[in-house]
């Protein structure tokens, strides 16, 4: 049966076809890398022109960002604080609420409630962010002004809260997925010890899902940092080096979109500055993502 034995040999034609397909798929997967590289290259390229005029030290240490004023100053810090403060306010809203919602939906709510509420929450993402901007400006801020009469019409608090509400579904749905992925036998283990729902949820399910919950936080941070239209509309557009959320301030994203629609002479340093600012923004999200990656590795699910 010599013929039979050759049948077992490697079928070159099929192998070549499989390799080709694998190559194509690999290229598709590599597109993610290509996009990242493209982002970094384009930002670096444009920012390079900026850094020929402005020293990196000034960029990183100056506390004034007034590229459009008569005596331009190029200190990114005010935009960074603006970004961090709004994101911080947003997270203070989104993280506790999102986690409570996630625990509630995953451990407390009956299936019917869960299945109806979840898609509703997901709709929060679908609303155009411009709408949220005006919601923050015309609804939330006046409401806050009743509680805090001194609150300026533009501030980071209002938009921060609105962004927070907007990203609740991000935090809650990723955390909920993580909690639902906790195997039932762990819950059974806890209930069998006489634990209540609340005890099981907080002492067993939540800690077991911590890595997924952290991933949700990171996603939330990225979204909060990257949100543009809400702050552009409602936080005021004056860079302001402050950690006080009650004050108005501009964020990196608000600055970029403002300039993209604005009156700057092209080729000016101010114009190039949006790429430098964009670079900082990307680096910030990168840092958070890496922190998230490390945290997740540390807390990897052990069940």
């Amino acid at each position, binding site marked *: 049966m010599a013929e039979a034995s050759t049948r077992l040999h490697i079928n070159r034609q*099929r192998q070549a*076809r*499989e390799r080709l*397909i*694998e190559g*194509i*798929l*690999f290229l*598709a*997967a590599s597109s*993610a*890398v290509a*996009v*990242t590289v*493209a982002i970094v290259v*384009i930002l670096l*390229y*444009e920012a390079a022109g900026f850094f020929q005029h402005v020293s990196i030290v000034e960029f990183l240490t100056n506390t004034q960002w007034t590229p459009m004023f008569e005596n331009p100053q190029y200190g990114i810090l005010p935009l960074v604080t603006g970004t961090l403060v709004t994101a911080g306010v947003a997270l203070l809203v989104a993280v506790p*609420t999102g986690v*409570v*919602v996630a*625990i*509630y939906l995953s451990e*407390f*709510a009956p299936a019917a409630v869960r299945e109806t*509420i979840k*898609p509703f*929450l997901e*709709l929060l993402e*679908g*609303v*155009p*962010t*411009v*709408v949220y901007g*005006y*919601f923050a400006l015309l609804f939330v801020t006046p409401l806050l002004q009743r509680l805090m009469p001194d609150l300026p019409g533009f501030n980071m608090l209002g938009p921060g809260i609105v962004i927070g*509400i907007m990203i609740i*579904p991000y935090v*809650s749905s990723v955390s909920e997925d993580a909690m639902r992925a906790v195997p039932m036998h762990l819950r059974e283990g806890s209930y069998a010890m006489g634990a*209540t*729902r*609340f*005890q099981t949820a907080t002492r067993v399910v939540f800690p077991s899902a911590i890595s997924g919950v952290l991933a949700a936080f990171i*996603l939330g941070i*990225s*979204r909060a*940092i*990257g949100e*543009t239209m809400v702050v552009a509309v409602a936080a005021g557009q004056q860079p302001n080096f402050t950690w006080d959320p009650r004050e108005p301030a501009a964020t990196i*994203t608000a600055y*970029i*979109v403002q300039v993209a629609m604005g009156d700057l002479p092209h080729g000016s340093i101010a114009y190039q500055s949006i*790429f430098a600012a964009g670079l900082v*923004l*990307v680096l910030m*999200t990168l840092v*958070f*993502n890496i922190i998230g*990656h490390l945290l997740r590795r540390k807390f990897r699910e052990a069940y």
Partner: protein
Amino acid sequence: MQAAELQTLRQQIAWRKRYDIWFGILGLLATMVGVLTLVALFVDLIMDGYGRLSWQFLTSFPSRRASEAGILSAWVGTALVMLVTAAAAIPLGVAAAVYLEEYAPRNWITDIIEINVTNLAGVPSIIYGLLALGLFVYLLDFGQSILSAGLTLALLILPVIIVATREALRAIPIGIREAAYALGASKWQVVSHHLLPYSSGGILTGIIIGMARAIGETAPVITIGALTFIAFLPPLPFTTDPATGATVGPFEWLFAPFTVLPIQMFNWVSRPQAAFLENAAATGIVIIIATLAMNGIAIWLRYRIRKTIKW
């Protein structure tokens, strides 16, 4: 167990169960924060914009007279941009996911790709706008076209599709794969005969959710310069161009200037006349209804898959 012991046990259980109730209430309240915000937003938009919603609004071009203005060019633009987005993001995203889930060896290259995918999910949308401005608009010279916008949004939703596809693939039991391999199927046969068909529902859900997000995106489309008054439709394939009388080619629309719904809304919102604010609100309603419909389809799909596919 002694009666006294039992008594303390019961007290102690009752005490612990109180937290269950409190947390149940807290959870419901927290959930309501989101839901009520949404309802408030929607009701507010409806109050402002309901009066403008009409057939005429959907079939008219924008105009300086608020009462005559409509969103025809905007919704056609949105539809076409979404078409490009889907055509670009779906094959790329699904292929990338298949590679990562089924092919990728465990090595540093895979690690780098993985990290990049999670990272891209976190890159602010405005940065995609900057990228697209440099890459699509200028370097590749697509201009401020439907193609540029579609590709920009495609990059934006690529991570969403990759993640959804991977999850759908992971949900397919290993036994199905083994069964196919055991019959002598090659890897690609396993992927194309089994994995993709069985995960198509999950993939579709991911696509729809990604697209629903893309529909409302404003910032990246503004950065590529789509904040534009457009009172005509892109040249639809095989129609005759009124100006030249020539027949339009199949791909000309890709390079046409365009506007999209959120941009039209943004444009109107910053007008001095109050009547334009009504138009903006009406546009907002249309966008929300579109996302609502898409999410609805996604939910229905998810539900149907859960019913039909079992292993």
